[in-house]
Each structure stands twice: as C-alpha cells, then as structure tokens.
C-alpha cells in the first residue's frame, strides 16, 4: 500500500514538474494576434500588449481530462442546485447567524494544524507564530474555537494555507485541471495537496466514521450558507460557466500562492 502511494506521488510530481506548455491540450493561453488593424489607436495597442504579457493572459491551465471534468462539473452543478443549496438555505433560515459564525469559527480553529504546518513548510515564521497564538487563545478563551477572540481582539488574521499552495510556492505547476466530485474545482497539484493535508486534519482521526462525515457535511453546509448567490452570479454573468469557473479557480489559487 505504502509503495503504491509512493509511486502515485512520484508520478504526480513528475507530471507537475514537467513543463506545463507541453500539456496544453485543448486549452491555450490568450495567444497574441500578430495582425494589427490600422484603426486601433496606438496607445490602446500598447496598453493591450502590456496587459497580455503581464502574465494576466497566461492563467490557462491544461485540461486533458476535459470530458471527465465537464461531466463532474455538471454533476456538481446539479448537486448544488438540488441538494446543497436548498439544504443550506433551510439551515440558514433555522440557524441564527451568530451560531453559524460560531460553527465557522470552530472549524476554522480546528484546521489550525494544516495552516500551521504549511506556514512552516513555506518558511512563514511570523504567520506560524500567529497561528499558534491564535489557536491557544481561541481554543481556551474562545471556548473550543467557537469565538474568534484572537481575530477580534488581538488583530491577528489567519490567511488560508494548504499543501497545494505550499507545493505552488516550491515552484510546482498546476499539472492539469481536475474537477472533483462534490469538492469542485482543483488541479492535480491541489488534489495531491488535499490528500497530504488530510493527514493534518483532525477530522480524519474522528471515530466513528459517521461522526467524521457528519462534521464534514456540517462544515460544508455551514460554509455554503454564507456564500449563497456567489456561484449563481458567476454562472449568470458568464458565457461559458465551465470555463469561467475553471479560470476563476486558477486565478484565485495563483493569487493565494503569490501572497
């Protein structure tokens, strides 16, 4: 079993390290068009060219599993509108905001080991220290993390960190785009990261398994209850929701890795 995991990880690493350009499949960055009609103002043209070369255009990610991904995207879309959203709406109607916020704080505090470990792995000493301090304070003064005392009264904020970001900081590329059932957009690198993070996630060690899954479900529904409407807006405003979501995921991850 261990050997199998090792082989898988090495395989993934090889794919991730290989130059992304060779993998582009059916997607491509916004290619620069050489033909310039005369009527375009020179100033605009300058601006435009710069915008294209600033790395803004190279957000594209390889998508060799397009058909699988598209199928998963459709499944997740249906699940969202017919299961997750109604449940989250009902939950939101019944559970007061204070309680939902408390639950969100609780899970955020519980995920401390993941952020802490990844801050260490990225050499972010101050952030790691903040994490540790906030964890101690929130778990005690904040009653098991339900109250985010450190964030409110000590002016500490705890940016999201995960292994996918750490691998990104190490220079490992996205590999390719991957839509996970239930979990949504990801990439090969971020999926490997998620797997690694699960070892630092306390919920992984919760027994019995029914309780662990219940906690995951609650976390998910609770999180969505704060974000109802975001996915709908993205979908409504887009011409191709699949591409819009893929691009948004990749852009968001890039900015998280950069900070």
């Amino acid at each position, binding site marked *: 079993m261990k050997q199998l995991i090792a082989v898988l990880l090495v395989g993934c690493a090889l794919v991730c390290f290989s130059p992304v350009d060779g993998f582009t499949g059916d*997607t*491509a*960055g*916004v*290619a*620069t*068009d050489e*033909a*310039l*009609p005369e*009527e*375009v103002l020179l*100033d*605009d043209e*300058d*601006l*435009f060219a*710069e*915008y*294209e070369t600033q790395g*803004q*255009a190279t*957000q*594209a990610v390889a998508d060799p599993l397009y058909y699988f991904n598209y199928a998963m995207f459709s499944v997740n879309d249906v699940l969202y509108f017919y299961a997750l959203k109604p449940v989250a709406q009902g939950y939101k109607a019944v559970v007061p*905001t204070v309680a939902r*916020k408390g639950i969100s704080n609780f899970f955020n505090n519980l995920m401390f080991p993941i952020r802490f470990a990844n801050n260490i792995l990225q050499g972010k000493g101050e952030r790691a220290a903040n994490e540790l301090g906030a964890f101690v304070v929130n778990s005690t003064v904040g009653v098991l993390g339900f109250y985010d005392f450190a964030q409110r009264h000590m002016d500490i904020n705890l940016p999201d960190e995960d292994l996918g970001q750490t691998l990104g900081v190490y220079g490992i590329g996205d590999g390719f785009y991957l839509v996970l059932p239930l979990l949504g957009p990801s990439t090969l690198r971020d999926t490997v990261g998620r797997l690694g993070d699960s070892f630092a996630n306390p919920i992984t060690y919760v027994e019995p398994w029914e309780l662990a899954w219940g906690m995951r479900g609650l976390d998910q529904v609770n999180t969505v209850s*704060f974000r109802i*409407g975001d996915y709908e*807006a993205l979908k*409504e*405003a*887009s*011409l*191709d929701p699949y*591409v*819009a979501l*893929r*691009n*948004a995921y990749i*852009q*968001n991850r*890039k*900015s*998280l890795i*950069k900070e």
Partner: protein
Amino acid sequence: MKFRVYAPVTIAFLFCLVILSTAPFSAFASIDDDARQKAAQAETYLKKLVDEVLVIVRDPDLIANPPAQEKTLYDKGLEIFDFNTFSMLALGPKYRKFTPQQRTDFQTYFSKLISQTYFPKLAGQDVENISINYLSNRPLKPKKKIFRTDIFTELVRGDTQIPIIYRMISRDDAPWKIYDIKIEGVSMAANYREQYSQQVSLTPEDIITQLKEKVE
C-alpha cells in the same frame, strides 16, 4: 588554462546578472512623482464613487422601486467604468477583429450584462453592514498619456473580508474610471478573455448576438 577560458564567460555572466538585477529598479524609478500623485487622486476619486453607489443602494425610495434603482445604478455604472477598455481586455485578441461599430455594440451589451448580474447582487445585500477599507494604491508605469493604478481594498460584509483590487485608468487627464476588478485575485476581464479565447469559431457578429440574447 581552464581559468583563462572561463574567466571572460564568467565576467560576461556576472555583467548580465548585474544588468538584470538593476532592470527592475530602473523600471520602478521611472514611476515618477506625477504618477504617484495621480494614483492618490484616483484613490480619493474611487472613494467618492463608491460612496455615491452606496448612497444609491441604500436610498429607501429607490429600494421601493427596483426598476428605477436598476436604471440609476446602470447610469452610475457607465460613469464609473471604462467599458471601452474593459471590453477590449475581455475580448482579448478577438477585439482586433471587431469593426468600430461592432465594438460599440459589444460595449453596450457587455455593460448591460455586468450591471444586470452584479448590481442587483450588491443591492440585495444587507447594505447597512457593508464597508470598504482602502488599503493602498500602486501606480503602474504610465504609457504616453495613459495613467493606470491598482487600488487595493477590502470589502467588509458582516464578518467576512473580501479583497478587491480596482484597476483604474485615466487617459489624457480624463476622470479616472475602473477598467477591471479583481475579486479574491480573480480578474473579471481575464475571466471573460479566457471564455472568449475558447470560442475559437465565433465571429464578432456571433459574439454580439450571443451577448444580446443573454442580456435580453
């Protein structure tokens, strides 16, 4: 012997390194005080615009009359956004295939799409709990008479903070306008650009028709 062969190479290499390492600084230095001053003005101006939008969104008379609110927000949107540049960056290389008339048409429907999908969302929030922190601004290197600046803000909605970067432009000393918004690191213009880049076979006419149908 070996040293003699490698020394010039090494020196050339070090020389290149020095050039490369100073290059960013020279680019940085060329953002002059004028650009910095203008960027600060842009931030002040953005604050004013955002406050005006919040006034519209919070106006009880307009809340009671959604079509009027939508109209007011749309007009305000035209004043705030540079939809010319926005649509240029949203279309990407395809923009060059558009005739001037098609560009205008695209701009009209694109501005409607943006205002239809995002303004009601803004209006639907519990607007009393919205506030905006202005964190910093970063002027970009001016190009001829085009000044640009990124303004880093944080939208506070209840207990959640959403980082938003407003990218603003001023051509020939015209008032500043927003040409792109980055929400949680996601540039709207770049997002549309990738969508359009995927639709390889669409002609400008197709794109305009598609957009028109979506808006109506």
